[in-house]
């Protein structure tokens, strides 16, 4: 019991040595590691926050691009359908004029044929009429004398 100098001094020296050791070899690395980790975590959180914000921005951008694309697509479809109906109209018009042309040509042909046939028929009818008349009169008709009559007849047929 009681105090004695030897033990007391021994304890004081021991204590100071231990404190020195702790200050030199224990405290700095631990505190440094903890500070570094705190910094790392803070950086990580900041990076995550930044990433989140960038993602939000990207979402907004995607929305805008999509809207633009949809608009473009709609206008392309519009143009295409317009162009399509134009083509159809053009084709229709072409077909109509071609048809009309064909019809006109056919009509001209027909008229020509008709005229041709009429001509042939006329001359044939004239021949038959002359022959018939000749037979009825039992005499020869003087072609020269009746030419005027014949022409008149022919014109009438």
């Amino acid at each position, binding site marked *: 019991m009681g*105090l004695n*100098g030897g*033990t007391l001094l021994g304890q*004081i020296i021991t204590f100071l040595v231990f*404190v020195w050791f702790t*200050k030199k070899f224990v405290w700095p690395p*631990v505190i440094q590691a903890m500070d570094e980790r705190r910094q790392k975590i803070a950086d990580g959180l900041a990076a995550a926050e930044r990433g989140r914000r960038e993602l939000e921005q990207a979402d907004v951008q995607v929305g805008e691009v999509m809207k633009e694309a949809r608009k473009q697509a709609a206008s392309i479809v519009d143009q295409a359908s317009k162009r399509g109906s134009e083509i159809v109209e053009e084709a229709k018009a072409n077909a109509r004029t071609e048809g009309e042309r064909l019809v006109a040509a056919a009509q001209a042909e027909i008229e020509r044929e008709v005229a041709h046939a009429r001509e042939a028929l006329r001359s044939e009818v004239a021949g038959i009429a002359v022959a018939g008349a000749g037979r009825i009169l039992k005499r020869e008709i003087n072609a020269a004398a009746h030419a005027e009559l014949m022409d008149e007849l022919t014109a009438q047929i």
Partner: protein
Amino acid sequence: MASASQSPTEYVTHHLQHLTAGEGFWTFHVDTLFWSWVTGIIFLSLFYFGARRATAGEPGKLQNFVEILVDFVDKSVSEGFHGPKGFVAPLALTVFFWVLLWNMLDLIPVDLLPWLASTVGIHYQRIVPSADMNATFGLSLSVLALIIIYSIKGKGVKGFVKELLFHPFGSFPLLVPFNIILNVVELVAKPVSLALRLFGNLYAAEMLFILIAMLPWWAQWLPGSAWAIFHILVIPLQAFIFMTLTIVYLSLAYEEH
């Protein structure tokens, strides 16, 4: 384990006998010094190996343990002490953990180590350094020295002397002696109360364990375990109080009143 050859008084006195070397002033309590060193080296190697491989990445188990304690002490110091922490924080850690290990030695059965020592011919062995006033005063006198150093560091020699002479009653010349007396008492009371609080708690606890050990073997477990469980509270509490008061005293010393 009071053997037949010993009376209870002899048993207790025997248990309270230090293993000594030297004479008079230069007496060494070899057991106190030895166990202080053992616990100190346990403390330092634990923290040294924990700190040496400390990484900012994922910490291992030992590093975790070290970090929890370092962080705990660092927070206590930050709350209590507002000067430069470079020395005070490691000091507080050393005080806390060293005292904690000292106190923990009290949980080793009181007869175990003395008995082991006696088998190799050492007849006295008190293993709890904090139940030896020399150990607790060794700490608290170091703290007293630091209080004076920090007073001078914080306020300068002039400030320190001025405070000693003129605080708290003022600078009227007649009051100076009273100021000095009060300040000296205050200064001395700090290490004395620090040392005696720790010593008293652990000495009483050790004494109680010794008394319990004198009961018949079948009656020891109940008071023994009850006291040990209660003592688990006292062990870290006393270590924490010692550390906190050290921080507070140094803070008071460093700052202007």
